[in-house]
C-alpha cells in the first residue's frame, strides 16, 4: 500500500518552523551550554530565531498575494497570516531584548547561581509560544485552531509560573485581610505560581468550551475546515442551525477568553500582575494579536452567514469589556493591574473593529494591533525596568519621580499612556478613530458613543500614571531602591537592551501615527484574504 503523503509547503510554514527549530536549539542550550554563557547564548538564539522568522514572514507577505491553504487545507498561506506573523515576531524580538536581563524572582535574590535558572528554557518557551501563535493566526481548520491554541497556551502557562521561588516564605491564604497594595511584603514568586495556576485552570476551561463548540460546529457542518464550514452552511442552509449557533457561541466564549474580553476576562488582571513582567509584556501584546486576528479570520471565513449573530455578540462583549476594563482600572494602585485592565478595555476597542465584520473593520483591527501591541509591550517593559530597580511590585506610589529619574523611560511611558488614552501621540489615536469609523459604517452609532465614553473614563487612570511619574515628588517614595542591582556591587543593570526594546515600541507607536497610509495598505492587502 502506498501512502501518498500530502504535499507540505515548507516555505509557507517557514516562520513557524524557524521558531520551533530555534526553540529546540535554545532548549539544547539548557543542557549543553555552560551556565556562564547560557543566558547570552539562548537569548542570541531567540533573537536570531525571531529575526529569521520575521524576515521569512515579510518574504511570505510579499510572496503570498494570492492566499490559499496549504498542507491539505490546514493552514492559510496568505498575507493576513504573514502580517500577523510579522507583528508577532517583532514583539517576540522585543521580548527577547527585554528578557536578556530578565531576572527570575524579580532579582530579589542576590544568589548569582540562581540567576540563570531556567533562562534557556525561558527563551525556548518564548520561542515555542511565538511559534504557536504564528501557527494559530494561520489556522485553517478548527482542529489546528484548537491545537495551536493549546500549544501556545501551555507554553504561556509555564512561562507565567516560571518565576516561582520554592524557598520563599509560605504565605498562601494570609492575604485575605491584606489590601492589595500591601502585598509587597509577600513573595511575588508565589504570585507567579498563583498566576500560572489561575491561567491554567481558567484557560483549560476556556479550551474545553472552545473544544465543545468546535465539536458542535463540526456536527453541523461535517467538516472542520473554515471554508468548508462556510460552504456547507451556504449549500445546506444551515444559517440558523442550532448546532451551528451553539457551537459558534461556545467558540466566541473560548476566543473571548484568549482576547481577555469581558466577561471572560477575569483571569487577566491576576495573571498579568502575577506573571513575570517580561512574560506579561509578551502576553498582553502577542496573545491579543493572535487571538484577534484569528477570530476575525474565523468569523469572516467560516461563519459569514451568521454575521448577524456574532457581530452583535462581539459588539456586546466589546461594550462590556470597555465598561469593565475602564471602571475597574480606575481604582487600581498596582501599575501592572492598571495596564491589565487597560488591555481588557483595548480588547473591547479592537472587538469593535471585529464586530463590524467588514473589510474596514479588518483593516481597523489590523491597524489597531500595531500601535496597541507596541504600547502594551513598551509600557510593561518600562514597568519591568522599574521593578528591577526597586525589587518590589510597581505601584502608583513607588512610581513617584520615575519620570524625572529615568528621562527616556519616563517619556516613553508618558507617550504610551497618552497613546493608550487615544490622544494623538502615536497611532492609538488613529486606531481608535478607525475602529469607531468601522462601527459607524456598520450603522452602530451607539457603539461609537460607547467607545468615546469609555475613552473618557480611561483618561483618568492613564493620566494617573503620568501624574504618578511626574507630578509627585520622589521624596514620597517609601521603598528603598535596591534589589539585586544594589546588592551585587553597584553596577547598574545593563538596560541598554531594554531601552532598545522600549525605543522600538516608541518608534512603532509614533511611526504608526504618521505612516497610516502604508500600514493601511498592508492591512488592506492582508484583508483581501477574506470573502468580504
Amino acid at each position, binding site marked *: 500500500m502506498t501512502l501518498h503523503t500530502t504535499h507540505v509547503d515548507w516555505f509557507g510554514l517557514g516562520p513557524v518552523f524557524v521558531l520551533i527549530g530555534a526553540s529546540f536549539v535554545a532548549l539544547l542550550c539548557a543542557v549543553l551550554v555552560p551556565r556562564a554563557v547560557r543566558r547570552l547564548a539562548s537569548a542570541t538564539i531567540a533573537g536570531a530565531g525571531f529575526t529569521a522568522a520575521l524576515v521569512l514572514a515579510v518574504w511570505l507577505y510579499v510572496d503570498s498575494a494570492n492566499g490559499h491553504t496549504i498542507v491539505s487545507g490546514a493552514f492559510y498561506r496568505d498575507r493576513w497570516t504573514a502580517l500577523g506573523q510579522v507583528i508577532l515576531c517583532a514583539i517576540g524580538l522585543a521580548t527577547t531584548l527585554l528578557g536578556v536581563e530578565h531576572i527570575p524572582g524579580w532579582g530579589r535574590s542576590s544568589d548569582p547561581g540562581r540567576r540563570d535558572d531556567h533562562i534557556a528554557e525561558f527563551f525556548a518557551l518564548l520561542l515555542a509560544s511565538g511559534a504557536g501563535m504564528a501557527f494559530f493566526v494561520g489556522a485553517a481548520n478548527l482542529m489546528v485552531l484548537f491545537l495551536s491554541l*493549546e500549544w501556545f497556551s501551555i507554553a504561556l502557562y509555564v512561562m507565567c509560573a516560571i518565576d516561582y521561588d520554592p524557598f520563599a516564605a509560605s504565605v498562601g491564604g494570609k492575604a485575605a485581610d491584606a489590601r492589595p497594595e500591601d502585598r509587597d511584603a509577600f513573595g511575588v514568586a508565589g504570585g507567579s*505560581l498563583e498566576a500560572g*495556576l*489561575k491561567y491554567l*485552570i481558567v484557560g*483549560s*476551561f476556556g479550551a474545553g468550551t472552545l*473544544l465543545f463548540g468546535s465539536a458542535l460546529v463540526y456536527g453541523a457542518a461535517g467538516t472542520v475546515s473554515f471554508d468548508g464550514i462556510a460552504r456547507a452552511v451556504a449549500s445546506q442552509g444551515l444559517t440558523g442551525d442550532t448546532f451551528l449557533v451553539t457551537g459558534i457561541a461556545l467558540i466566541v466564549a473560548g476566543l473571548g477568553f484568549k482576547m481577555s474580553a469581558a466577561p471572560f476576562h477575569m483571569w487577566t488582571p491576576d495573571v498579568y500582575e502575577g506573571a513575570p513582567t517580561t512574560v506579561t509584556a509578551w502576553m498582553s501584546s502577542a496573545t491579543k494579536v493572535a487571538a484577534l486576528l484569528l477570530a476575525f479570520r474565523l468569523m469572516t471565513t467560516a461563519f459569514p452567514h451568521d454575521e448577524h449573530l456574532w457581530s452583535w455578540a462581539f459588539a456586546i462583549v466589546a461594550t462590556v469589556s470597555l465598561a469593565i476594563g475602564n471602571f475597574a482600572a480606575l481604582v487600581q494602585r498596582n501599575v501592572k493591574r492598571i495596564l491589565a485592565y487597560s488591555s481588557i478595555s483595548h480588547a473591547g476597542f479592537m472587538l469593535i473593529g471585529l464586530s463590524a465584520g467588514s473589510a474596514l473593520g479588518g483593516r481597523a483591527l489590523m491597524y489597531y494591533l500595531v500601535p496597541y501591541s507596541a504600547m502594551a509591550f513598551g509600557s510593561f517593559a518600562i514597568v519591568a525596568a522599574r521593578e528591577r530597580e526597586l525589587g518590589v511590585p510597581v505601584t502608583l506610589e513607588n512610581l513617584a519621580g520615575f519620570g524625572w529619574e529615568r528621562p527616556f523611560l519616563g517619556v516613553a511611558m508618558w507617550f504610551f499612556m497618552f497613546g493608550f488614552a487615544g490622544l494623538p501621540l502615536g497611532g492609538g489615536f488613529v486606531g481608535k478613530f478607525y475602529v469607531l469609523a468601522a462601527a459607524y459604517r456598520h450603522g452602530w452609532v451607539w457603539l461609537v458613543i460607547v467607545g468615546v465614553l469609555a475613552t473618557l473614563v480611561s483618561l483618568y487612570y492613564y493620566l494617573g500614571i503620568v501624574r504618578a511619574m511626574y507630578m509627585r515628588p520622589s521624596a514620597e517614595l517609601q521603598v528603598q531602591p535596591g534589589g539585586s542591582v544594589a546588592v551585587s556591587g553597584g553596577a547598574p543593570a545593563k538596560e541598554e537592551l531594554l531601552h532598545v526594546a522600549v525605543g522600538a515600541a516608541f518608534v512603532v507607536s509614533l511611526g504608526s501615527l504618521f505612516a497610516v497610509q502604508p500600514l493601511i495598505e498592508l492591512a488592506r492587502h492582508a484583508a483581501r484574504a477574506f470573502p468580504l
Partner: protein
Amino acid sequence: MLGPDVAWYVAVAAVLFGIGALGVLIRRNTLVVLLSLELMLNAGNLALIALSRHWHNGSGQIFALAVMAVAASEVCVGLGLVVALNRRRLSLDVDTLSELRG
C-alpha cells in the same frame, strides 16, 4: 446504525460537559479541578467521535486523538504546578490562592 442515534451521544456529552463544568465551579481542591477539566475535554471528545460517526469522516476522530494528547499535556503542566505549590508548602485549595485580586 446500531443503538441510539448520534443525538443521544451528543446529549450525553453535553451532560458530561455540564458535570465537568460544575466540578470546576464547586471544587476547591486543585487536583479535583484538574480532574473535572478532564471530564470537560472528554465530553468534547465524545461529541466529536459521535459526530465523526454521523458524518462518516475521520476529522472528528483525529480531533479527539489530538485532544487526548492536549489533555495529557495540560495535566502534565497542571500537575507540575501542583507539585510546585506543594513544594512551597502552599495549600492546594484554590480559594487560598487569592493573593492576586482586586
